[in-house]
């Protein structure tokens, strides 16, 4: 039985701008299942990070407002609970890692001290017990010579090692949910491969659900079992990875797949084929099309698409937001 660890529905987030509020995320939802990785994909600015930051209410309250939505973690609801209560969940039951670990690590403390503190924030343990746990966590994320590395400062570590430290810190309290926002985007591919493998191993051992935010469909194909595709603040398609990659239903998803240079197939007798592209650019949140948000760029559009925005409809084990899905 798949057990839902976290269920998000109806998330709508707006930002203050010079010309009124704009909606960066509009009615976004998905279920995170225990022991599974859900990929959240889409192009820059489509709302992936706003969605993931909203789950822990980490957006700047001066500009961002969660208008609507529910995020159920077992018996609690994260979006409406008090800040005090939420701080007991943040880092303990739901943990998060980011693209650039350097910005989330404090440069003036050793990495060991920072992990110790993360542990002691949520658990009543002595300094010595915390340090023992820190060393255990560092070896768990396969940092060589963990005792010595615990005394290193963040800048003394490589990007890959820093990301391992962040993972160790995130796992300090055995979270039920790990949110990973582009955790390998800043890393070289060989290091990325190792980090993804590590996350998979830890997930198998600890059974947490992972929300993996990424713009890389290759990464999703490798590690996720289900995927949510976003476009201009909306979920446009959602479903199991195998089926979605085999036959995307939304024209945007299909266009994204086609524009990746294919491996091993781009030449016809030495000549470079033209890559299929999605014409145009993502619309500004201030001037969203009235109908389907993808309509101005969509090769499959028809008259109805400009007039009426499609809703997210179930099709078998998938959901798609399109008047004329591809299959």
């Amino acid at each position, binding site marked *: 039985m798949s057990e839902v660890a976290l269920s998000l529905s109806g998330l709508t987030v707006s930002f203050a701008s010079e010309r009124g509020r704009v909606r960066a995320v509009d009615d976004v939802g998905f279920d995170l299942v225990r022991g599974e990785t859900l990929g959240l994909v889409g192009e820059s600015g489509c709302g992936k990070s706003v969605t993931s930051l909203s789950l822990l209410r980490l957006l700047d309250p001066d500009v961002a407002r969660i208008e609507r939505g529910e995020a159920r973690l077992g018996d609690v609801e994260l979006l409406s609970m008090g800040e005090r209560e939420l701080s007991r969940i943040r880092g303990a039951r739901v943990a998060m890692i980011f693209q650039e670990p350097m910005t989330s690590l404090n440069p003036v403390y050793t990495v060991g001290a920072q992990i110790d503190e993360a542990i002691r924030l949520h658990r009543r343990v002595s300094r010595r017990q915390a340090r023992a746990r820190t060393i255990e966590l560092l070896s768990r994320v396969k940092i060589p010579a963990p005792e010595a590395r615990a005394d290193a400062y963040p800048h003394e570590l490589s990007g890959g*090692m820093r990301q391992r430290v962040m993972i160790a810190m995130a796992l300090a309290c055995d979270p039920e949910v790990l949110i990973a926002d582009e955790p390998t985007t800043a890393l070289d591919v060989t290091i990325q491969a190792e980090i993804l493998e590590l996350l998979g191993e830890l997930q198998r051992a600890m059974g947490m659900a992972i929300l993996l935010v990424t713009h890389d469909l290759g990464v999703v*194909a490798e590690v996720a079992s289900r995927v949510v595709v976003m476009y201009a603040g909306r979920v446009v398609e959602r479903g199991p990875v195998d089926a979605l990659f085999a036959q995307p239903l939304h024209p945007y998803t299909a266009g994204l797949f086609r*524009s990746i240079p294919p491996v091993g197939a781009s030449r016809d007798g030495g000549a470079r084929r033209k890559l299929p592209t999605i014409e145009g650019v993502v619309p500004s949140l201030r001037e969203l099309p009235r109908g389907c948000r993808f309509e101005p760029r969509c090769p499959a559009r028809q008259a109805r698409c400009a007039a009426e925005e499609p809703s997210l409809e179930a099709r078998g084990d998938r959901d798609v937001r399109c008047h004329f899905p591809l299959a």
Partner: protein
Amino acid sequence: MTPLLEASRVSVHFPVGGGWLSRGRRVVRAVDDVSLSVARGETLALVGESGCGKSTLGRALLRLVEPTSGEVRFDGADISRLDGAALRQLRRRMQIVFQDPYSSLDPRMTVRDIVGEGLVIHGLARGAALDAQVAPLLERVGLPRDAMGRRPHAFSGGQRQRIGIARALALSPELIVCDEPTSALDVSVQAQVLNLLVELQRELGLAYLFISHDLKVVEHLAHRVAVMYLGRIVERASAEALFARRRHPYSDALLSAVPVPDPRAKRRRLTVAGEPPSPLSPPSGCAFHPRCPRAQPGRCDVEVPALSDEEHAVACFFPA
């Protein structure tokens, strides 16, 4: 035929750290004894991971950094001997497009001034004549006509990269060094820019030195590929040959690490142990030996393998 660009045994060493009190100057060998050539109308891709020296090499070939040793010839002329007018003349013929479309364009300048800057500097056009030259360039790279008077912030990442390409094209160069020109872009926009580069090459006979860490992009675009590791070329071959068969264990690891957007793809992942060493303290012998699954003690950790003299060249004692 002489190649358009030919580098022989180029090294770029940067002095580092220590300060004036310390004895014995330390150097980083950012580029170490690299030879390569680019023919007219050809794309040579330079691939490797961050810090392997590919950008430094690209800049050294344009003399934006001075090589410590070695020789670079452009159309037969040794560029290290050129100065003044001759160097400026040469700069017209080789241009560069940078990775970051956000920081590589001056936010205070209009698109007209950015794209036309080279023409003005070289005294080739001014005023209305400048507009007449800039307009078709903008059109050629797919920017709207009214782009002319706007500033970079009014454009998306892909459009800014087109501005950068128009700027590079303005002086009708023969070679463009493209330093990760699409790595800051989303895939759908990246595809548009890659198509543009391919079209321009066909039309204008441009040669590209295409610097990238993205093997999918490289396979799509390159005629020939050179793989770098810690300042050296470890493998060099036609794109067909290299993607059909990697001879160097590092190239193999690099390619197998690329995530394939196909959940059914059978992964044959060859993970290499650990991380790239610091160029400040390169390993003895073959720089890849501490991570290499094929390394033989007594050989790989002692001797530096030279790049072989073959069509499909490799710098490894035990190549595939």
